[in-house]
């Protein structure tokens, strides 16, 4: 089966629009009858990724594939990249600027949440080139 393919473009620095992709995917999965616990995992993982694209990477692309048993999400950007991935993955580490901290971002919990709530998680990053995150959540 080919599955359902979705593509979202996340604009940079627009925190009012960031969250639209995860909200849209959530409502689609609801309509497909996916169990609520799986929807919650997808929602958390994608929202955090979407916000990171907006805040840290000047925007990026999200590709989603929904098959009978899995939701796959690929987030890619041409932002600054991440020099130390294990540091970025640790809880509490954040380089979020003050203006986004004042909105409630910057706990340094986004990447740890993405890893925790996805069943498969992979992040690749090259400084000066960009970052790609692949996540999969089982919905069977």
């Amino acid at each position: 089966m080919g599955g359902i393919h979705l593509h979202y473009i996340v604009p940079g620095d627009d925190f009012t629009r960031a969250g639209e992709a995860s909200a849209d995917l959530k409502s689609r999965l609801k309509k497909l009858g996916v169990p609520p616990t799986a929807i919650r995992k997808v929602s958390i993982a994608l929202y955090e990724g979407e916000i990171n694209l907006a805040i840290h990477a000047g925007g990026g692309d999200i590709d989603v594939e929904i098959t009978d048993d899995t939701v796959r999400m690929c987030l890619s950007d041409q932002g600054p990249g991440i020099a130390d991935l294990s540091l970025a993955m640790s809880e509490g580490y954040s380089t979020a600027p003050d203006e986004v901290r004042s909105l409630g971002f910057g706990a340094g919990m986004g990447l740890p949440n993405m890893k925790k709530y996805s069943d498969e998680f992979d992040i690749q990053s090259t400084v000066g080139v960009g970052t790609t995150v692949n996540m999969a959540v089982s919905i069977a």
Partner: protein
Amino acid sequence: MTNLELENLGFVPAGPVPEHEVTGGFCCDLLSWAMSRCTEGKVWFTVMGNINTVAVASLADAAAVVLCQEAAWMPDALERAAQQGVALFTTDLPAYEAALVLARKLGQL
């Protein structure tokens, strides 16, 4: 109880209140903290009245968000909440005291 009873507890609705079962409360202003810990059916007490709070509350299936200590909801937050079916309230109480009101009602003290 459901979120419809929050008004009787003195919390002021800031828009439509779609009914949702209430299982407990949650206090924190950091969004990704709330994203993973404000589990379904919680009433979320915060002072962050922007649209991102609404996005997180919706994705986390919070029962309601109570904006504490006279903080004000932003107009785009109110609009998004109405679209996504998130119940928003306000209160003059600080988050700690507001949460106590709910905890008493839920018999969680």
